[in-house]
């Protein structure tokens, strides 16, 4: 199937196969698709054996950082006598990203199964799925599926008759982007402000409630049952460019594009064909101008650069940006980049947790300068200030929120400086005149 559009023939629907099918939410239907076979199998395996399969598959974190999942799991010291925790990061709040929402609202059991396998693989008996508070519908779908799974003995004490305990619970957020940062997420579950923690200690040593913890993204965990069912080699074979990037990946596409939505393609898919064939190209009469390919925190690139990219972790890096969360934000030639970047900066200023000076003050200052430029009150010195400020906001704080504010802004100015200069000198380039009310 596919949602909101039918799957394109060139897509490889693994995770998205049942998007749009309300029946797929039901436990019985899900089992008829082969659901929970992988969990049954996993519960009979040694945790390290599961880790090995996932390591061999090449699966990397789908939340943004791209850390190898099996390796991350292997950091958990099994048999240390402490309670271990798995946290599923379903705080999906990165502008441009809306894939986890679809996984949860259409295929809740896929995630539950992934969570249960993941928990067992790290020696945890409890998994918390931290879902952003705005996602009332995914929360309701997940809660209902969890109730079904619990009633069917799939999770809980003696999960699937294995004698093992695997509990999975939803924990609802309450409006804070930063809770998608893994240590902030743990603080939030603990009932604290969602402040990122200083590392070390790393979560695998002292995480949720001070216990060894692993945090995985929704898409990452949802992929795990497929890997166990079909084998690491099958997953690894889904690779058309860099051997370090394997499997299928959901890309959320939004902004100025003919067919926004989620697309699942094999790693290494040519971005140009993705944009024009799968996504239908720009809206009628417009041209693509700029793209932020991995959620709003990664550098912006021009369409000319984007057309060269192979869609995997290494492919995006090669063009100075990142695959990130796979949230592809597209701006067409009617958009004012200064206005869009000012708005993005405002997002980060709004979401800064307020701990680190550079982030708390820097994101707000950056926003004010950009908004002043957009209002026609900018100076050329402002651009220098932005770059120095961005330098000050990069690599100096507890988490990377302030880096994430700086990256799209500086890359945007580097690539679209003429638009900023036009605003500063009082001339609007014809390409942005359409954006109107600046």
């Amino acid at each position: 199937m596919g949602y909101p559009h039918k799957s394109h023939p060139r897509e490889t629907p693994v995770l998205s196969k049942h998007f749009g099918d309300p029946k797929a939410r039901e436990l019985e239907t899900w089992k008829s698709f082969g659901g929970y076979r992988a969990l049954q199998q996993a519960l009979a395996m040694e945790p390290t054996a599961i880790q090995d399969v996932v390591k061999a598959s090449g699966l990397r974190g789908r939340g943004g950082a791209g850390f190898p999942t099996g390796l991350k799991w292997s950091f958990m010291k099994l048999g240390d006598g402490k309670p271990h925790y798995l946290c599923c990061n379903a705080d999906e709040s990165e502008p441009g990203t809306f894939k986890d929402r679809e996984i949860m609202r259409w295929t809740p059991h896929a995630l539950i199964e992934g969570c249960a396998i993941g928990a067992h693989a790290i020696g945890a008996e409890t998994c918390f799925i931290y879902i952003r508070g705005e996602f009332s519908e995914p929360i309701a779908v997940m809660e209902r599926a969890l109730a079904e799974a619990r009633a069917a003995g799939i999770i809980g004490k003696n999960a699937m008759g294995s004698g093992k305990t695997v509990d999975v619970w939803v924990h609802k957020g309450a409006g804070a982007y930063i809770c998608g940062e893994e240590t902030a997420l743990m603080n939030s579950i603990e009932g604290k402000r969602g402040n990122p923690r200083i590392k070390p200690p790393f979560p695998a040593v002292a995480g949720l409630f001070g216990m060894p913890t692993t945090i995985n993204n929704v898409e990452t965990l949802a992929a795990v049952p497929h890997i166990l069912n079909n084998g690491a080699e099958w997953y690894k074979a889904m690779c058309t460019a860099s051997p370090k990037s394997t499997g299928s990946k959901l890309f959320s596409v939004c902004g100025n594009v003919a067919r926004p939505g989620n697309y699942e393609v094999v790693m290494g898919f040519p971005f140009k064909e993705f944009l024009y064939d799968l996504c239908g190209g720009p809206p009628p009469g417009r041209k693509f101008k700029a793209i932020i390919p991995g959620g709003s925190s990664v550098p912006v690139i021009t369409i000319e650069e984007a057309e060269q990219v192979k869609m995997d972790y290494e492919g995006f890096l090669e063009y100075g940006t990142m695959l990130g969360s796979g949230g592809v934000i597209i701006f067409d030639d009617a958009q004012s980049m200064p206005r869009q970047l000012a708005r993005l900066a405002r997002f980060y200023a709004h979401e800064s947790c307020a701990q680190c000076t550079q982030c708390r003050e820097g994101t707000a200052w950056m926003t004010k300068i950009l908004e002043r430029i957009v209002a026609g009150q900018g100076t050329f010195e402002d651009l220098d200030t932005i770059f120095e400020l961005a330098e000050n906001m990069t690599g100096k704080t507890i988490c990377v929120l302030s880096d994430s504010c700086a990256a799209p802004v500086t890359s945007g100015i580097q690539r679209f400086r003429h638009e900023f200069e036009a605003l500063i000198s009082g001339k609007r380039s014809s390409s942005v005149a359409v954006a109107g009310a600046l």
Partner: protein
Amino acid sequence: MTAPMVNLTIEGRAVAVPAGTTILEAAKVAGVLVPHYCYHPGLPVAGVCRMCLVEVEKMPKLAPSCATTVGEGQVVHVYSEKALEARKGVLELLLINHPLDCPICDQSGECELQDYTFAEGRADSRYREPKRFNPVEDFGGDVMYVPNRCILCTRCVRFMDDLAHDEALCVQERGDRASIGKATEKDLTHPWAANVVDLCPVGALLSKDFLNKARAWELDRTASVCPNCAQGCNTIVETRDNVVMRFKPRTNTEVNQYFLCDEGRLDYRWLNRADRATQPMIDGVLADWEEAIHAAARLAKGATVRLVANASLSNEALYLLKRAFGPGVITVRTGAEAPLPGASDLALRADRAANATGAEWMGYRRVSAPLEGLGAGDVLVIADHDLTGVSAEAVSRAKAVIVIGTQVPAAVTAPNVVLPIANMAEEEGTFTNLRGRVQRFLQAKAAPGMARPSWFVLADLATQLGQPAVHFTAGAVFDALAKAEGAFAGLSYDTVALKGKLAAGATAGARA
């Protein structure tokens, strides 16, 4: 078990510190101050101000030195260009919304934002946007909050959480809208809450008591000991023009760490009282010192003396009083004990007197009715005791009354001799705290009129009474005391120094 030592180089200086030490603390050992705001040695690490960033060779990013532990062979640069640039950036950001109202800010002159900006900050600001504004808020207790000056270092929040165990403060809101908040109905009423004022590195948390009273640079600072309870918190007495303006805590990790309770710190006005005894007097007539000492000696010689001493007199005064008259009685005002739960063995003590332990070690008896059983023929010697609760009629039973004190008590209507002495801020000496720690305090201001240090007056008096005590300094009195009184054996004024020493009596449980 001691931690193994780790060797590293900080600013070119080799230093060895126990494993687990932070770079910031190791730098102190090397004699290098890493600028910082949120870090405080008495509080848990927050790592949020990012001011203490240093460059560590082979580390990809600058390291927050407060939250980074030392590694063998590390080479740390505190003043490299990269580190300086980063800190300059932090300073600029801390000032963009700051009102820059130093001329009317109480913190001015002792402000770390001023100091580090002066040392490492930019000469100008590139900030051209409107500044945020939040109104001043009364936090209750002695604390006022000026949010516009706040740098969100969270020292105050951490103090209330981790030391006071009273989570009365929080960081509220987020981003650049964040400020320190408290619940509407709950003020900073914790008996140690005013420490947040000391901990605040900027002018955001201010003492209402001290508000607009003095500029920091006008104050003279003297190492002292809080006289207001038996804990003996180390203090700095700050004076201007011979007037005590405030007490501040002085760090002593053995006694009070970095802290001072509210009651202790705010109870300083008595040191400035104007209604003092300032002249030696005999039968209500001004006398010179020699006459007065002789008159007192004549009255006491051979008589049955009832000595009533203030339990906050110095060890030296109590020792000389004992030499002159034999040990007397003390009374000790008591109040509710108020611990600082996050610190070990630190409390506002029930005994609201500085030296009851010293007095008791020397044989003074703690009584509640100091004149009980006073004989008609007795000579009453009042040693800086206020005789609260004692009637003039009871005093009048004495054959004669000698007042050696800062004031003549109301109950003493017709003293035969008055010998005016300095109060604790006007002289030097030692107190013994409730754990038996002997601690020195120094003279912070001049005594009024002809008042003399207690040890000076009492040494003369003891000598006149046939108990030679020829000493020219408080230290000499103490050294004599240490020889004479077993509980103080082995101590000397010099070794007690400014951090104090535990006396033999503390461990032996000795009572003279």
